[in-house]
């Protein structure tokens, strides 16, 4: 079983991120359970979305406290929340932001962090600062959980026309960026 925790603000597309991730796993024949946890029901309020995935249907309904991976869709949330709480010894974090904006806490030796300027990538291809697909591209490269093709298939299922095209490009750039960081 793998557990992914997404930190975001309401309105930034965390549920879309979780459902794209879930769908990519589903297309691989795995059994995801993707679910949100809302805080105050208004835009901008910090919230979580979760994906728990296994080869068998997932029965566990609790939130995720010891994630294998975290995706932080807005680095400003790190000021108020310990987004790394419970992250596994060899866990990986994907953070939306620019390197100079993000102060990463002290990590355990095997933990890894990938900072991706996903909003800039999204603005370039989609015209709006919704960096979810760029972050997911980086997630695929950083974790090896999914191929870029898996993610692309999920994006094609979710979006059509220009939005589909832009999101596929954003995912590709996120993927390439994380790949280059691994090599670098």
């Amino acid at each position, binding site marked *: 079983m793998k557990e992914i925790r997404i930190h975001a603000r309401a309105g930034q597309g965390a*549920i879309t991120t*979780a*459902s794209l991730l*879930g*769908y990519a796993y*589903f297309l691989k024949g795995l*059994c*995801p*359970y*993707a*679910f*949100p*946890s*809302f805080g105050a*029901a208004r835009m901008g309020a910090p919230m979580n979305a979760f994906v728990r995935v296994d080869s068998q*249907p*997932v*029965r*566990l*309904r*609790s*939130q995720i*406290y010891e994630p294998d991976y975290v995706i932080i869709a807005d680095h400003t949330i790190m000021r108020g929340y310990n987004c790394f709480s419970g992250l596994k010894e060899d866990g990986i974090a994907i953070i939306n932001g620019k390197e100079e904006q993000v102060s990463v806490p002290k990590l355990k030796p095997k933990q890894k962090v990938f900072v991706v300027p996903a909003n800039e990538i999204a603005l370039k291809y989609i015209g709006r600062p919704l960096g979810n697909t760029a972050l997911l591209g980086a997630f695929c490269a950083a974790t090896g959980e999914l191929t870029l093709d898996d993610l692309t298939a999920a994006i094609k299922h979710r979006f059509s026309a220009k939005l589909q095209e832009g999101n596929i490009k954003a995912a590709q750039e996120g993927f390439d960026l994380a790949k280059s960081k691994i090599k670098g």
Partner: protein
Amino acid sequence: MKELLEGSMAVAEIVKLCKPGVISAYPITPQTHIVEELAQIVADGHLNAQFVNVESEHSAASVVLGAVATGVRAYTATSSQGLFYMAEVLYNIAGMRLPVIMTTAARAISAPINIWNDHQDVVSLRDAGWIQLHAEDIQEAVDLHLIAYRLGEDKSIMLPVMVCMDGFILTHGMETVDMPTQEQVDKFLPPYKAPYKLDIENPLTLGPLVDPEYYMEARYALNETHKEALALIPKLTAEFAKVFGRTYNGLVEGYQLKDAEKVIVAMGSVCGTIKEVIDELRAKGKKVGLLKITSLRPFPVNAIYDALKNSPKVAVIDRALSLGSFAPLSAEVKAVFFGKTKKPQNISSFVVGMGGRDITKDSIKEIFRLMNGKDKQTEFIDLKPELLKENYE
């Protein structure tokens, strides 16, 4: 076909396949994506139904009451305070013997305002005369709607059915669902043929004033019908298995009950978490089990007795309260065993997950651990004692 679907979308899809002629809902919170999606389905011409947007849940319930009274299959959905605002009409729907089917996203109630999941709304409505079925996962929620229409519309029953699914955890969660085809649904669920209806050619009165000469018999009959529903549910689930290939008991479901020394009784999605914990504890040689209650109304007294009569220790999980008394489900499970020779040595009562307080594997392990000691009565799990120390003097 297997699809990855949000619970609300999956329910909207199965309701579409059940072909209701009237859907009515109050579209604003507390509401789910179910009716939002159904409104879209109707607007897109994929379902030949009238979607009646109303100004309150009281009106939504009244519209579906009226629709079924004229012999049309109908559907609505609500939650929390919305369910309470419907309450007056819900008792009428049951008393008028109209098989309305409603989904309720089980959620907390005000005050304080809280939108999250527990069972206080639906459990409070247990005496309304509706049949009440509780789903553990999204697939079961989907399938229970098919059972609900068959059960409610059966001429021997003619009662409304509420399908309860945990708010957010199931309504907003996504998981793999095997969605039936229209052909399968049509095979299992024929069009609704009302044995009585409002018809200007053949006038009749539904829900009239009934004086003391007759009233008691009407209420007695309702209660008797619930007993008949207990017998019909397993027959319907057996028929369901033949068409759809999925097996449910429909009343209760045992998990690792054989030889279990400690058994938790629960309803809804928490049963998944409990099964997960049971597998872990069983791997360590602990003899633990679960009795899931699917049908809260009618209450399956005999099935519960048979399942638990040899269990030494039982703990009932409530996600609702009967303020000032015993937690409701625990009181009913205890009543099953009053005066019986064969019975558990202990039946403890625990309250968990109120207002969306997360129920973790540790919460469940704590309950199994507390079952070692004396009886626990209405014991709250994961309570924060430090929050109880406020002083306003």
